[in-house]
């Protein structure tokens, strides 16, 4: 499905995308999109580059993505068995779960009493970062390309030289009384 996912098969990519979409949900990329559940308007973690970030050599997660995908599908299979869900065999088990069930399963995997919490939290961190930092790309380029997360957050853009400056930054007036014990240098007593 994705060039950047050369080391993962399509099924693994779908499973990881479905996980990222559970963390920061978004609209489907097209009518045939099964990984993205379409639970929210606007692009989610997947179209914000979650897989790129997970696969980036800098991130350090790439080497364990295949086992994470397999683990997620195992958990989904167990979840379906426990809850009496029938899973569509045409897609990986986690992808086959409806969005509310994906959410419920991820909540248990990332809970403090889950022995695997750390690795699922790490995968969630990369999903969030994809959406709200676009860290797979240079920020100026991500913004110029209409990065879904940064755009929906209203992240203001830089000056033409690629650096941020905010000339207007202060209400410019006294807004509270200072603590009566403040020292002449402005410190607590």
């Amino acid at each position, binding site marked *: 499905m994705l060039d950047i996912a050369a080391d993962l098969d399509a099924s693994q990519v779908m499973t990881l995308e479905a996980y990222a979409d559970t963390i920061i949900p978004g609209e489907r990329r097209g009518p045939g999109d099964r990984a993205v559940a379409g639970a929210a308007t606007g692009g989610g973690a997947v179209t914000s580059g979650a897989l790129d970030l997970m696969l980036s050599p800098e991130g350090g997660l790439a080497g364990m993505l295949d086992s994470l995908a397999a683990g997620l599908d195992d958990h989904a299979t167990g979840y379906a068995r426990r809850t009496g869900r029938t899973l569509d065999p045409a897609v990986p088990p986690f992808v086959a779960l409806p969005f509310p069930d994906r959410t419920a399963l991820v909540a248990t995997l990332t809970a403090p009493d889950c022995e695997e919490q*750390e690795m699922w939290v790490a995968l969630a961190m990369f999903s969030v970062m994809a959406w709200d930092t676009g860290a797979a790309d240079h920020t100026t380029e991500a913004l110029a390309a209409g990065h879904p997360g940064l755009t929906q957050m209203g992240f203001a853009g830089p000056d033409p030289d690629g650096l941020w400056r905010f000339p207007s930054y202060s209400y410019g007036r006294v807004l509270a009384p200072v603590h009566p014990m403040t020292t002449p240098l402005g410190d607590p007593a």
Partner: protein
Amino acid sequence: MTDIERTDVIVIGSGFGGAIPAYRLAAGGARVVVLERGPWLSAEDFDHDFRFGSAGTRAFEFTMGDGMNVLGGNCVGGGSVVYFAAMPRAPRFTFERRGGIGRPLWPGAVTRDTLDPWYDIVADALPISRNDWSDVTFSGGLFAAACAHAGRTANPVPAAVDRSTCVNCNWMMSGCRFDAKRSLLLNYIPAAVRHGADIRPLHEVQRLSRTADGGYRVHYDTVDEVDYRVVTGGGVLEAPVVIVAAGAAATPVILQRSEEELGAMPAAVGRYFSGNGERLNTAIVNEQRVREVLGLDRGDGRAYEAYQIGKGPVCASWDRLDGTLPEFHRHSLEQLYFPPGFGTILAQAPDATGPSWFGLEKKEILRRWQSWLTVFIMSEDDNEGVFGPPPPTGNAERISQQMLSRGPLSYRPTANTRAGWERADADVRDILERDGLSRVMPWSNDVIGAYTVHPLASCRIGDDPEISALDDRHELRGHPGVFVTDGSAVPAGLTVNPAFTIAALAERAVPGIVATLAERGVPVRYVTEAPGHAVSSRRPDRLAV
């Protein structure tokens, strides 16, 4: 052994605890080598970029632990490069803390009065200046106005920021592109270099051993400048005096790993870690109520919507810095900016019916990110942190090329600490939820445990050898000639940002180190001259890597 390089003083780490003695001792005539684990970056490297591999990941270290996660600097200049430069002095009562154990935590020789002259020296050196209301950013102003509306006070926070060159870009956690933030790259470090100190970046110290004449050998690896997991070489340095200032998340690990060759460490090495009682709350601001209740207007039709704008924390509530209150009831609240990524993942959606830190409702609050106001709690914790056995190298096992690692620190907050957090959370709600100004939630502690940007106390000074690893001169008990001058020496949480106090303590430690050097045959003058102010953080060409 004749090929081992010798010097007078080896300094491990180049943050406040390392750079200050490095300058003073080099200026006094000592041969000083500084071994810094991270890269040497300067303004031109401090790009405005979230991309992995940019300054934000090169200069930072996020060390995950069991119940406590530490965010700190990993570069020449250490925490000063990535800090928010809020520099209040610690309140008088903090030096009288007794903690949950009911015993004095600070040495009797250190009080606010005895430390004030050392604070003064640091304030001139960086420099630190008072902020006035025209410097207070929209987010600081909103917090102040909400405090006033609640019948409270609010203070502009003294800061090490040059207001004439600051552009309020809020990228300062990735280093300051404009050299407006007065990091150590603009004062103590160039002054140390000018006096001959040899600063060696990408040198990660692993352990110390002893020489036959009572000196020390410092064993280090060199690491790759992009992938810090890759060891490129290593070596040994020898000196009569070693200053360990690797930060409170690393100093005790180096000492623990040295125990096999140096002999037993004081029991307090790697114990009593404090996260400075830190905790964050995020308010989702109701723009209309801000206009109606507080009368705020940016002049362009917007009441607030300015979370992105500013220079970190500029305004604080000090009403609970009250020495008449019992311990664990005292805290400061500081308005703060935390950039996307680390600054959003733990924030929780108020009134969530599903998961609060991810999913549909989380996305909704993220869409209102410009209307966020983050409040930083610095309270009194109970020094609960304990370091387990050291990892094979460094202070943690690296996961990513840069920034992300897993270390041996564990932290189980006591009832005292938890109650302090709850009181502070309630205080934040009282200020910011009043009259519908916002909805506030603390960051979740269920996802990764607690967190701190101000690790302290893991190798602390004190009078009582049972609960302190260092004497009041910062010398490691039982290991003469080894000094610890970083945040790990601070005995307990301060209820305010600790960088200024760490720096003042490091200044205060220097005369004692000078005396020890003399005893060990290295005559060094104690130099009182200020380091001077550089206009650029540009890295000197002379590098000895």
